[in-house]
């Protein structure tokens, strides 16, 4: 529902990610983090919820 | 136009752990610009805003004394966001000090008077400043008898222990150091709560005797009747209050007790004044 609301507000769904990773699943953790990083990188820097201090 | 929000840049010159539980540290600051030290001329009882860029500011009583030159000292209890950050800073770090702020103990009024200083726990910082000020050779003759009653939970929780024991040895000040309890068999001072020690050891009041009281609310609550019993009138009991503050210069509006602002009209009030105002502190 959180993802839905973010998307509803116009924020890219791929910026939010949920996973179950046990403390024993180190490789899964690495894979998931990599996947998220790639997806977020593909979306470019967020200009919506990131604060702009230049003003 | 002078900007009262701009802090003087200072360098942390020394950090001392002040109590055995490490919840208090005493910071010694040196001004980056020597000229600022003169602008920061203060009196015992005043406070300042310790200012950490990007973190925030906290109002803290000045623990060093106007007669101690070249540095300023503050003893800080770790409790909120800014104090926690400060406790993690190291010698040599740069930060800011804004002040001096507020009023001070009424030194003119206290001239040629007996002064009884009553403190508890870590509310002893501006009292340290006051004692050092009064004991300074240039000032001692301006006051009559000086009594100090200071208590903490245990010997290791007393602030400025070395100074206390030095004062204990002098004959121009009567020290009554106490702890709530201790299992140290060599403890040679009092044991018991501050109000009880006040009852037994504080001088009986005449019109030339004033008491300065600083401590946790519970200590103040029980010390007041003890002082009344000894003949102290409300105008002879001087207290320093604490409230949440931001600006420190009477503008931001939060620290009021009635129409008085603790940061600007205080923090020092007589009991007589406090009794006329809502007790919102």
């Amino acid at each position: 529902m959180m993802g839905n609301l973010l998307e509803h507000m116009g924020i890219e769904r791929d910026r939010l990610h949920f996973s179950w990773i046990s403390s024993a699943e180190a490789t899964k953790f690495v894979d998931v983090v990599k996947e998220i990083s790639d997806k977020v990188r593909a979306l470019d820097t967020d200009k919506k919820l990131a604060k702009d201090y230049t003003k | 136009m002078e900007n009262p929000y701009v802090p003087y840049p200072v360098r942390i010159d020394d950090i001392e752990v002040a109590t055995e539980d490490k919840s208090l540290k005493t910071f010694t600051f040196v001004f980056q610009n020597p000229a600022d030290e003169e602008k920061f001329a203060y009196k015992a009882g005043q406070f300042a805003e310790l200012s950490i860029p990007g973190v925030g500011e906290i109002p803290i009583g000045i623990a060093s004394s106007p007669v101690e030159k070249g540095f300023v000292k503050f003893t800080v209890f770790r409790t909120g966001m800014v104090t926690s950050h400060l406790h993690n800073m190291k010698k040599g770090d740069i930060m800011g000090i804004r002040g001096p702020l507020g009023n001070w103990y009424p030194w003119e009024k206290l001239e040629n008077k007996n002064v009884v200083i009553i403190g508890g726990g870590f509310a002893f910082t501006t009292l340290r400043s006051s004692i050092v000020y009064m004991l300074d050779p240039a000032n001692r003759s301006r006051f009559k008898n000086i009594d100090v009653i200071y208590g903490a939970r245990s010997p290791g929780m007393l602030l400025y222990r070395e100074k206390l024991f030095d004062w204990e040895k002098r004959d121009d000040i009567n020290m009554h150091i106490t702890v709530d309890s201790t299992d140290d068999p060599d403890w040679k001072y009092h044991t018991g709560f501050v109000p009880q020690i006040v009852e037994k050891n504080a001088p009986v009041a005449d019109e030339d005797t004033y008491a300065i009281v600083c401590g946790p609310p519970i200590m103040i609550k029980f010390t007041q009747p003890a002082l009344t019993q000894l003949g102290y009138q409300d105008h002879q009991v001087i207290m320093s209050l604490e409230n949440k503050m931001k600006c420190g210069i009477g503008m931001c509006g939060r620290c009021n007790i009635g129409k008085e602002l603790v940061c600007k009209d205080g923090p020092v009030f007589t009991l007589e004044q406090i009794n006329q105002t809502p007790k919102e502190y």
Partner: protein
Amino acid sequence: MNFITIDKKDWAGGIDKSRKTYRVFGPVQDENGCQLKPLAPDVYPLMDAGVTVMSPKSVLFPQTEKMLTATLDESSEDHHIMKPVEKDNTPRVVLGIRPYDARAIQMVKLNFDNPDYQDPYWCEAYDATTFVGLGINRPDSCDFSTSAGTGPFSEEGLDVLMADLDDRYLAKILTEKGETWAEACGFDTSADAAESQALFDILRKEAEKNITASVDTDRLSEKSILDLYEAPFWDDVAFSCINCGTCTFVCPTCWCFDIQDETKHKTATRFRNWDTCMSPLFTHHASGHNPRGSKVQRVRQRFMHKLKYFVDKYDQGIMCVGCGRCVASCPVNIDIREVCKTMNNYEKE
């Protein structure tokens, strides 16, 4: 004092001329009613609009204002040294400010410009600002300004007071600042002083007659602070309150603020925000203790400050100009007029 007439046909042109030297603020309409805002180059003030939802205090005292910055980059020589933020203090003019709002700014001035300290952000903005007021011909039903020590044609705090005479404005120049502004606009048609003053007096009386709401303040100063503080009525006054702080935000005289620090990358910024005595955080000690921890205590603080502490401290009446904004905006209908009456009439048993 000199008077000028401004034909409404010349009004917009005059404003445009003044834009060369002034930043122009004025009332405009938006989705939420009327607001006082800086005007874009092609926007003109809505002079006959109703009372603005928010007061004009933000012209000098923005809700969020940067105060100081410092670099945290240790390779920089001045790292961790906080310095004031540069401000745009070029002349600005507020058009169509309501006379009671100008009086409110004088009250806020007592706080920010006092014998001990001057707040440079507020004071410098104040010095840069010209206040051109418009007398209120048809006061709202929530307006009780006359009994709060001001009124629909009050001159206090204004540089120019104008009156709307349908096809023209009659303007009374009250200060040098006002004169400079009129010159910048090219408004120079002088009017007969005696005649104009007589007209102002008629309009003022007419407008004051239409104000039906009032507060009684005559006995507030003789009461003791503690009697009022301990009075039994506060629970009832506060019951409906949700502690939202709307009353303090819309109030032209509420000046309290909070100071906050933020850091992004290697830059620290200290800024201030409007704060409100309705919020428990306002007085919450780091230790957890809160001297005004309950809703009743906070509601009492607001009214005691406005209607008693201020009265005693400054001897300039109540800290309220009777604009009625808090009455109109309060979501639970707490009405300062009723509270003031209750306080004024309170007798300790």
